């Protein structure tokens, strides 16, 4: 045991060491996680479903193989939470949508296969915004998730359940997906580490599609080393995803050197203010302090302006809904999921009733937006124009990377907002992704790491953005910063409430 901390509060690499030395078993770790889940899940609601039988069998297998003297991969026996967007063979997968309720995929996503082969233990499927469309997890058809640092606030989204599960020590690590910030923004709001790899670095096979040219798979973890270990599991070419990249996969843990001397870092002006509106003062201060810290550690920090980033929101909210309107055409009540059972309908009526009852408001809004943007007479004005401006955004990044090795800024303009605060105003919700969206448009790797706390004790995340396939530089800078600070060591803790229940709220 490491100090007085319970096993579920340790990082994956700490647990990996204990497991390798046979000081603990996968079963004991799993039991510690279930104990925490039983304590706090009623308040946090990170999971849509737990897979206790699957997990018990996986943990037992790891323990048996280790007892038999087998050398196992580093993360064998580490409990993992999976966003409900990953197809998991014979385990219900809903994407937090009524339209997929009861769907049991006949196959595993590529990354789920990789996690199984590496001996990770599946705790369950986490809550999310329906079809990953949202920034607060409030668009789930099956209830909201609460931020473990303050139960009245959102965990961010769309991978809100995955981030909350790690932040509340209800999982050791988790998997999210990121189309416009859905790993990084919740990681930031929940004070954990989240990494969106370069587009194509990780296979999307078996990941329920939202916007195919933007979607990317990645880990949410307690620290940077865990993130590197997860990337070792996930990255690599998969022939079933024609967009996956052939490039060799490094051992990402070798990038974890406490060394940024001479690293050229650009602080992106447009991350600090979008169209002239600055991020919240506390967030801006934390980022400037983080930049100063990196400078003290030997990096060269300078401000840089990427002017076309000021158009990221309209570009994204044309391209993503356009792609979504096509991807979501498959939910028609024929092959799987919900079907309206009204008698005497013709087939078009059946489709329309099914989709009306099966999809939530935000999903419908985006399907409408995308269908309109692609419809006859409007394609050039919207989709083509947005795709051209996307090129200009990418060129701005390419130019910046001639001068810098890494770009930084805030992950989100604010800390976690209150539940219900933005649900009535879709445009205000869209603007909370203003710093993360450009990175998806450029196909670049991005990361969120804890870099401070607000006066209210809410976590603030620093955004790191690398060149295409620049994950190692990003991880090295993240690791160096993390090792010189202790923001990542603070955890949301359960406390006894007055009515005798347990709630998770931040300590200290």
């Amino acid at each position, binding site marked *: 045991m490491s100090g007085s901390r319970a096993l579920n509060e340790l990082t994956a690499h700490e647990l990996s060491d204990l497991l390798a030395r046979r000081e603990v078993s996968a079963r004991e770790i799993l039991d510690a996680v279930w104990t925490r889940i039983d304590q706090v899940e009623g308040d946090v609601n990170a999971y849509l479903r737990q897979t206790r039988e699957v997990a018990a069998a996986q943990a037992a297998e790891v323990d048996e193989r280790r007892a038999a003297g087998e050398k196992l991969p580093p993360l064998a026996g580490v409990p993992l939470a999976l966003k409900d967007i990953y197809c998991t063979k014979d385990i219900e997968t809903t994407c937090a949508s009524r339209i997929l309720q009861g769907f049991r995929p006949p196959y595993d996503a590529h990354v789920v296969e990789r996690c199984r082969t590496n001996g990770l233990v599946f705790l369950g499927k986490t809550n999310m915004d329906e079809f990953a469309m949202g920034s607060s997890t409030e668009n789930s058809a099956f209830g909201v998730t609460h931020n473990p640092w303050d139960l009245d606030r959102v965990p961010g989204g769309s991978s809100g359940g995955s981030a909350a599960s790690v932040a509340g020590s209800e999982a050791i690590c988790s998997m999210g997906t990121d189309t416009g910030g859905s790993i990084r923004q919740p990681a930031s709001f929940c004070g954990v580490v989240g990494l969106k790899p370069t587009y194509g670095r990780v296979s999307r096979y078996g990941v329920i599609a939202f916007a195919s040219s933007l979607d990317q798979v990645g880990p949410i973890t307690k620290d940077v080393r865990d993130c590197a270990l997860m990337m070792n599991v996930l990255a690599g070419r998969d022939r079933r995803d024609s967009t996956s990249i052939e490039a060799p996969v490094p051992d990402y843990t070798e990038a974890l050197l406490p060394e940024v001397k001479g690293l050229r870092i650009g602080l992106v002006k447009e991350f600090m203010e979008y169209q002239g509106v600055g991020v919240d003062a506390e967030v801006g201060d934390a980022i400037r302090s983080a930049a100063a810290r990196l400078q003290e550690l030997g990096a060269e920090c300078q401000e840089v302006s990427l002017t*076309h980033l000021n158009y990221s929101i309209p570009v994204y909210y*044309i391209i993503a809904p356009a792609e979504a309107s096509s991807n979501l055409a498959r939910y028609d009540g024929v092959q799987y999921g919900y*079907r309206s059972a009204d008698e005497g309908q*013709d087939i078009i009526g059946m489709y329309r*009733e099914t989709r009306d009852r099966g999809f939530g408001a935000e999903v419908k809004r985006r399907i*409408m937006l995308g269908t309109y943007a692609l419809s006859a007479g409007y394609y050039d004005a919207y989709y083509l124009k947005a795709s051209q401006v996307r*090129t*200009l955004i990418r060129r701005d990044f390419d130019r910046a990377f001639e001068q810098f090795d890494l770009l930084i800024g805030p992950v989100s303009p604010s800390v976690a907002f209150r539940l219900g605060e933005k649900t009535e105003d879709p445009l205000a919700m869209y603007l909370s992704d203003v710093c993360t969206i450009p990175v998806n448009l450029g196909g670049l790797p991005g990361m969120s790491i804890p870099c401070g706390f607000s006066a209210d004790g809410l976590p603030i995340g620093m955004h790191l953005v690398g060149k295409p396939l620049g994950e190692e530089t990003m991880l090295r800078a993240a690791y160096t910063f993390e090792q010189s600070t202790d923001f990542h060591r603070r955890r949301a803790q359960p406390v006894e409430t007055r009515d005798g229940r347990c709630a998770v709220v931040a300590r200290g």
Partner: protein
Amino acid sequence: MRLTPEQVEHVALLARLQLGEEERARFTTQLNSILEHFEQLQQIDTSGVPPMSHAVPMSNVLRDDDPGPSLSPEEALQNAPDKARGCFRVPRVLE
């Protein structure tokens, strides 16, 4: 106003969505405010700029045509809301 309630209804039909009266009115307002925000893209000169359709330059990714196992009919049908004789069953399509 760019979108009228009638156009919203037309788009809903194209998208195979059915909107109630209230939902149609709400979407008309919301979609118009979003489209208005998009208008700023028209200020940018994009003449001669190629559209970006992919984050990584890749073209003609081909693989060998080697047959492999695929889902059995039972597996493919296991989630179907309605099926008959090894097929998905749908409401009448032809009159």
